[in-house]
């Protein structure tokens, strides 16, 4: 097996036994990036020089007998997570030259664990989108079919993992932005419970919904990354002071491994218009497989599913319009220096710096919060959010996890939906409820379409019940072969 194809778990074993060095591994990954980046377009910045320094430092640590499960492991990082002295653009022209003077808490934790950061990966601008086509920097192609989108907004994370241009990645998920690209690229992605992982140093999109999480080649790697990034942080007042279990301890596969687990199947989801028959059949097969492994299933109801999309597309843009007010051409980022008055400078800086989707959401959000419309839009959406949370609360009285598709259809063609934002928003129907309710969700590979595109199964759990997601996902993964399939790149 080629080094860049290794999982984190396997690479760790080889590093520990000193059969390979982090230097070898990092060079293999950088060569791989060099070979196929032109086709995939996953990276905004490749940090080859600092990556080699980090690899050499990791080798020294290992030679002293100190090794963590992530020491010397090459990772990519979504370009919305601040990395000290390494440009962080949010795929936006307005932050094109922004070099953070500090590390996000998750980066601090990863650096302390000894990882190698090979680069910053592409995304929809400010994480607003489902295809990575809203990037102000470049287009990312799906490694399984280069004419298609990788999903979004963490499209660069998912594409770089699927194409073996790193061993794992961190993304962020506000309405499905980790799970949906993971599904489209045939990799594992997790959005943790809100408050599980510190958001300090994550550039804010919608603060009550945003959460950082891993994108990985398999469930084990996902658990290893979750162990490394989870936990309370004094610098994030919304992070939750709660002990972090060892997520790898829930990875135990045996016959009847899911005995005693009840999975809930939402009756509303099968009736979703636009649900692709191939996705529906792959997800049904996955549910049957999980039942064969000993799980029981019950039908549950999430009656406010349809309103969830509407509530989300009021709440997320409202929060975004407020968060993005900070880009004023004064403190950092792009500034239109030709304008003589302050207000003109603000306006022209923001209009030239933000792409169309970001401007559309700022206007939608500002409108929803404006005098006369606040009650009808923002307040109403926030009340519906309460109803959505109650739906889940009720559902989790009868089941441990909820199973569903991640996306209604496999990856679509680049350019297919760009002129129809509402249509693009509707494709988030299965994922965004978890963000509104603050509960964890995961995507695991569960099949391929007839033309070879990956399909993901979504597993949703109750607050801080990531362990149950890992248990179900791991048993399913070990009983199937989908995660072993590689792209032809």
């Amino acid at each position, binding site marked *: 097996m080629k080094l860049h194809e290794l999982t984190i778990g396997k690479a760790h074993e080889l590093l520990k036994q000193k059969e390979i060095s982090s230097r070898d591994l990092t060079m293999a990954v950088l060569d791989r990036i060099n070979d196929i980046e032109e086709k995939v377009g996953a990276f905004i910045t490749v940090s080859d020089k600092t990556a080699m320094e980090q690899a050499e430092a990791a080798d020294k640590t290992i030679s002293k007998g100190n090794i963590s499960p992530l020491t010397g492991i090459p990772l990519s990082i979504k370009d919305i997570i601040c990395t000290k002295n390494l440009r962080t653009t949010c795929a936006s022209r307005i932050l094109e030259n*922004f070099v953070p003077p500090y590390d996000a808490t998750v980066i601090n934790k990863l650096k302390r664990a000894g990882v190698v950061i090979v680069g910053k990966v592409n995304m929809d601008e400010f994480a607003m989108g489902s295809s990575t086509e809203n990037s102000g920097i470049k287009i990312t192609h799906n490694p399984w079919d280069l004419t298609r989108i990788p999903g979004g907004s963490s499209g660069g994370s998912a594409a770089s993992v699927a194409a073996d241009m790193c061993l794992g990645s961190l993304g962020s998920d506000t309405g499905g932005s980790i799970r949906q690209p993971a599904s489209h690229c045939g990799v594992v992605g997790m959005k943790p419970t809100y408050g599980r992982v510190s958001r300090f140093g994550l550039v804010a999109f919608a603060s009550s919904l945003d959460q950082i999480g891993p994108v990985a080649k398999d469930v084990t790697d996902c658990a290893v990354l979750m162990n490394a990034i989870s936990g309370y942080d004094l610098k994030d007042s919304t992070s939750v002071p709660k002990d972090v279990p060892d997520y790898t301890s829930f990875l135990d596969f045996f016959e009847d491994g899911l005995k005693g687990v009840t999975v809930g199947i939402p009756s509303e989801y099968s009736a979703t218009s636009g649900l692709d028959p191939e996705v529906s059949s792959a997800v049904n097969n996955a549910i049957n497989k999980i039942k064969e492994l000993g799980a029981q299933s019950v039908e549950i109801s999430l009656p406010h599913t349809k309103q969830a999309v*509407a509530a989300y597309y009021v709440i997320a843009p409202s929060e975004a319009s407020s968060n993005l007010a900070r880009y004023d051409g004064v403190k950092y980022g792009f500034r239109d220096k030709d304008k003589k008055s302050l207000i003109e400078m*603000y306006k022209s800086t923001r*209009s030239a710096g933000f792409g169309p989707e970001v401007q559309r959401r700022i206007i939608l959000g500002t409108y929803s919060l404006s005098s006369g419309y606040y009650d009808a*839009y923002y307040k109403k959406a926030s009340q519906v959010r309460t109803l959505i949370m109650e739906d889940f609360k009720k559902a989790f009285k009868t089941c441990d996890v909820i199973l569903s598709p991640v996306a209604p259809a496999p990856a679509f063609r680049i350019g297919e939906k760009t002129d129809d*934002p509402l249509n693009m928003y509707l494709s988030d129907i299965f994922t965004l409820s978890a963000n509104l309710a*603050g509960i964890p969700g995961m995507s695991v590979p569960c099949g391929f379409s007839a033309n070879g595109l990956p399909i993901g199964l979504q597993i949703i759990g109750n607050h801080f019940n990531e362990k149950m997601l890992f248990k179900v996902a791991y048993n399913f993964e070990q009983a199937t072969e989908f995660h072993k399939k590689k792209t032809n790149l």
Partner: protein
Amino acid sequence: MKITKDEVAHVANLARLDLDEAATVKFAGQIGNILEYVDTLNRANTDGVPPTSHAIFITNAFREDEVHEHLDRDAALANAPEKEDGNFVVPKIIG
């Protein structure tokens, strides 16, 4: 029409965005479609339902009032498009 061209222009001004005529018209159509969809919210009965702004129950997150590690002034100013004598520079505000 859920939102007029003039309303889009007004909101754009509030959000400090400078839209040309073509963008204003295009946004009015697209945002109008989105708002029409958002009307599905009205199918939910929210009488007496409290709004949620935060999905995890946390009350005031206090900490000790102590000085922690922080950025020095040069680091904080490093990305400023214009700076002078340790300050951010903005266009003249008072004539």
